[in-house]
């Protein structure tokens, strides 16, 4: 089944910079990928979904790309703010025909003021 890999090391950036988080999938090419935000002690919150036929998706300061050749999705936060500090999770359908999502372990983002 699908495996999602995210950089487990925390990403530290300065306020105002662009944060870029990486999600790699290892097996089949998913029909879509989802990105969630998780704050400590809380449940994940959906941010964006990108389909395999979409190269890029934007929502306010967020941008997601989907590169089926590299088997990768990039998640960008422009003009980052300390309030963006959280763990960001990438998710894919686990495999074709199965009704479940598989999640990566997430990348923790820390935006320094």
């Amino acid at each position, binding site marked *: 089944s699908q495996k999602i890999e995210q950089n487990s090391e925390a990403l530290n950036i300065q306020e105002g910079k662009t944060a870029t988080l990486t999600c790699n999938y290892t097996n089949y090419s998913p029909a879509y990928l989802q990105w969630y935000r998780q704050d400590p002690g*809380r*449940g*994940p919150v959906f941010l964006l979904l990108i389909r395999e036929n979409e190269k890029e998706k934007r929502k306010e300061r967020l941008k997601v790309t989907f590169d089926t050749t590299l088997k990768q999705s990039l998640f960008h936060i422009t003009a980052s703010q300390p309030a963006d500090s959280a763990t960001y*999770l990438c998710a894919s359908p686990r495999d074709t025909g199965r009704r*479940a999502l598989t999640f990566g*372990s997430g990348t923790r983002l820390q935006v320094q003021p």
Partner: protein
Amino acid sequence: DTAVSQTPKYLVTQMGNDKSIKCEQNLGHDTMYWYKQDSKKFLKIMFSYNNKELIINETVPNRFSPKSPDKAHLNLHINSLELGDSAVYFCASSQGPDVGPYEQYFGPGTRLTVT
């Protein structure tokens, strides 16, 4: 107005006990899920129900038994608790008959500690 709610928020219990976690969603969604998030932060699907019907049952010990009295509620009962059951359990819901390209709404989680 809480979309997906879970009770209790924290649960501390001893090995061998039986406990339940309750979940309710007021979004009118057809599908509900239980996930387990371990210490390494991986979220793993345990069960999924669509309109009270079990559609996903992962390789979970049969000590775990989900129950869906109606499509707005999905409870999780755990028998004979073990140390390895300690984790955060999340309930979630989504529209549609299966996981599809639908966003999932998660509850606040229940932190279970087995001593």
